[in-house]
């Protein structure tokens, strides 16, 4: 594409060429005209020569006629020719004066013709005066003929030179006209070429201008659409700072809509202050006008919208100018950085957490190369970030375990869930560092695995504590073992004691009782006073009571010390057995009713027998004199346990005594035979089976004992 100046040069060139060719043609024309004029002139000159020569001849011819005939008539053409020659001579002289003919030639010719006419006059005169013979004598002398030949030669010489000049002029006229034609043709051709170039050039220009126009409108459309839809706020002002355009985001941020804002000065719509100082900031348009180039706002700029809400923004302002022209507007692009600010804050917070964390937080890429290294890592392992970032993380592993890194990454790749592991790592100085590590995958935005973050907690104190704990545990176990052994020994001892009681202590008692009995029986046969016999009886009774006491104590220690497994026990069956076995529970002594099926509980048959035989025994024992005992046994289920009620119509128990009821050797009523051991045994065995026992009672209104025991079905 040619520039405008080039096009101008082309035009100037073409004009110059046209001028030159015109001048050339003009000059050629002039030369041609000159030549043809000269040609005509030469022709006229040649004609003059011919007329001159032929007139001389005519004059000679008239002279000859007269000489021969003597007729005066023949002198007429002679005279005429003589006049013509005189005319022609004058003409030739004129031409010579004009410089067209050589002056000496003309003079020679004229003198020759004068001589001729003189000769002719003499001959004529001789004929008239002398006759024919004299005249002829003169002619025969040949001077006339010689003159004539000289004239003819002179004319021929002059004609020859004139003819040569004529040919010259003709040649000149010929060549100039050829040149002119050629120049004209060339100029025409040149013009034609120029015209066709100019046409092509013009049509191309028109086409591109149309396309440019179309493109411009398309771009305008595109820019308008783009500006409306981009996330940045865009405000355009004219050179005076009045708003001409406001896009959707700018509308949102300023709270002004386009039609309201149009034409207003920028500061009215775009109110900005410094976030910290609250100082109003310079109108960016003024700044542009002052500086003339793109400017940015200072940091911490806050845009206050029409409604008073604020948004932190960052922005740039650019002047709008046409190339080389003065500024005719300003475009202001700004962005709500609230979210960016939040993201930055969050990132900063996270970074601070990572940096200030007491744990070592390290990231590695999938090749196991360390990417980040926080302060905790520096403290724990002793490597400066610059020393280890970019190096394989395997240096942190004890020698021979470098493959651990790859193995861990492989697990991540396989998608194993991250888990905490305990391990041993190595510090820069080669010290072993026990750590608890959590390995988590790092993924990029597409979710592709790019590496791993590793949180490493120094568990040296924990390990130490664990060791201490383990030692303590060990010590404790040893102590427990020791104590258990001594306790077991003590229990064995106790069992031995109880065995001794049952065997050794009862033996002398048996001796006392039996011998007193024997004495008593023998005394009845005579020999002892009634008083002595009574003493014997008392010894027998005392021994019996002591024996019973020892028996109870034995039962109690057995209830406490015996190891008894727990198993499902059907209480209905157990109770039926009890009622059959004990004579006191037979229908002739008491009315004992078991209501419905009792629960199947988790317990021990022997303990349960002790429990219910005691409860039933009490129930039938503690009744007012003469009252037939009525006992009701029933069970109810209650949250996985069974409550068994034993209700009697006995004398009842005062409220203030109920708390003492289940104590050892607690006797509430001395009128009844008993040693205050039964309920203590009941409580002990029930507790040993994981149950509870209690009573609801009032004096005179009977007692309701309850026993809670776990249900067998629940345990099973």
């Amino acid at each position: 594409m040619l520039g405008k100046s080039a096009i101008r040069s082309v035009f100037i060139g073409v004009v110059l060429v046209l001028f030159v060719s015109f001048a050339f043609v003009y000059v050629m024309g002039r030369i041609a005209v000159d030549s043809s004029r000269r040609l005509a002139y030469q022709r006229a000159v040649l004609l003059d020569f011919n007329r001159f020569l032929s007139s001389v001849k005519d004059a000679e011819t008239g002279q000859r006629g007269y000489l021969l005939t003597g007729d005066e008539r023949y002198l007429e053409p002679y005279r005429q020719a003589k006049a013509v020659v005189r005319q022609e001579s004058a003409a030739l002289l004129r031409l010579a004066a004009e410089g067209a003919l050589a002056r000496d030639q003309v003079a020679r010719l004229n003198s020759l013709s004068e001589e001729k006419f003189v000769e002719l006059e003499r001959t004529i005169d001789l004929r008239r005066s002398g006759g024919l013979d004299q005249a002829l004598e003169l002619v025969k002398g040949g001077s006339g003929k010689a003159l004539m030949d000289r004239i003819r030669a002179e004319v021929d010489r002059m004609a020859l030179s004139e003819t040569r000049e004529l040919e010259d002029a003709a040649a000149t006229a010929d060549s100039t006209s050829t040149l002119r034609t050629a120049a004209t043709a060339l100029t025409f051709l040149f013009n034609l070429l120029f015209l066709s170039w100019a046409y092509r050039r013009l049509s191309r220009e028109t086409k591109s201008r149309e396309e440019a126009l179309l493109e411009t409108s398309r771009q305008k459309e595109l820019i308008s659409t783009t500006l409306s839809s981009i996330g940045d706020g865009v405000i355009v002002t004219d050179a005076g700072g009045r708003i001409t355009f406001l896009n959707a985001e700018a509308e949102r941020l300023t709270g002004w809509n386009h039609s309201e804002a149009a034409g207003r000065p920028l500061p009215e719509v775009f109110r900005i202050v410094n976030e910290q100082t609250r100082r109003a900031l310079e109108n960016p348009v003024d700044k542009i006008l002052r500086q003339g180039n793109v400017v940015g706002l200072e940091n911490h700029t806050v845009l206050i919208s029409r409604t008073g809400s604020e948004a932190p923004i960052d922005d740039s302002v650019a002047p709008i100018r046409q190339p080389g022209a003065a500024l005719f507007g300003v475009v202001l692009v700004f962005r709500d950085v609230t979210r960016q600010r939040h993201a930055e804050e969050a990132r900063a917070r996270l970074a601070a957490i990572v940096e200030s964390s007491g744990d070592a937080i390290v990231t590695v890429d999938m090749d196991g190369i360390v990417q980040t290294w926080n302060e905790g890592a520096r403290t724990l392992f002793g490597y400066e970030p610059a020393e280890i970032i970019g190096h394989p993380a395997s240096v942190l592993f004890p020698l021979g375990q470098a493959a651990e890194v790859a193995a861990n990454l492989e697990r991540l790749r396989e998608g194993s869930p991250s888990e905490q592991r305990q391990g041993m790592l190595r510090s820069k100085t080669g010290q072993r560092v026990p750590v608890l590590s959590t390995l988590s995958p790092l993924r990029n935005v597409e979710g592709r695995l790019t590496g791993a973050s590793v949180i490493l907690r120094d568990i040296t104190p924990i390990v130490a504590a664990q060791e201490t704990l383990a030692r303590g545990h060990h010590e404790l176990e040893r102590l427990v073992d020791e104590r258990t052994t001594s306790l077991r020994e003590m229990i064995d001892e106790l069992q031995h004691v109880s065995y001794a009681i049952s065997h050794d202590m009862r033996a002398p008692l048996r001796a006392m009782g039996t011998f007193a009995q024997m004495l008593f029986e023998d005394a009845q046969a005579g020999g002892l006073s009634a008083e002595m016999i009574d003493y014997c009886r008392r010894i027998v009774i005392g021994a019996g009571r002591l024996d019973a006491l020892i028996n109870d104590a034995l039962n109690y220690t057995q209830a406490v010390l015996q190891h008894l497994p727990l198993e499902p026990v059907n209480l209905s069956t157990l109770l039926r057995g009890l009622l059959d076995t004990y004579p006191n529970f037979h229908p002739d002594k008491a009315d004992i009713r078991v209501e419905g099926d009792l629960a199947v509980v988790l317990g021990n048959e022997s303990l349960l027998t002790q429990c219910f035989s005691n409860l039933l025994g009490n129930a039938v024992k503690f009744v007012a004199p003469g009252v037939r005992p009525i006992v009701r046994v029933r069970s109810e289920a209650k949250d996985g346990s069974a409550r068994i009620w034993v209700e009697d119509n006995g004398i009842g128990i005062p409220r203030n005594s109920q708390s003492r009821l289940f104590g050892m050797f607690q006797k509430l009523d001395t009128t009844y035979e008993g040693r205050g051991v039964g309920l203590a045994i009941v409580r002990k065995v029930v507790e040993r089976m994981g149950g509870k026992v209690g009573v609801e009672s009032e004096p005179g209104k009977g007692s309701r004992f309850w026993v809670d025991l776990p249900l067998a079905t629940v345990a099973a």
Partner: protein
Amino acid sequence: MIRPVLAAEDEESDAVILARVFLRAQVPNPLIVVRDGQDAIDYLGGVGAYADRSAHPLPALLLLDLKMPRVSGFEVLTWLSSRPELKELPAVVLSSSTHQSDIDRALQLGARGYHIKPQALDRFVELAKGLRSRWLQPR
């Protein structure tokens, strides 16, 4: 002649009581009491002082206390089970121990019965009558 009842009993009182009870229960067999298990074994084996079988005939019933000096009742039972010639001799335990473990062990070792020594005289007499009818009635 009626074969005796051999009782191994270290408690002298119990021995006296036993004699009286046998009398009251009208047990016809004479009662021979040895002081411990070792003596019982010696007697049954005809060893030492008991070598003379005519003076110390084999008993029709052996009553064993369990807890005795030197050799216990259990050991006597064990020894007895190793003597086929004494297979016919019924050994019955008469002890103050109420422990089920003692009862189980004695029966396991070959005791034909286990009786807890009654504290009251008349109950003791009842027991003796039971022994007489069970083990000592002439065939």
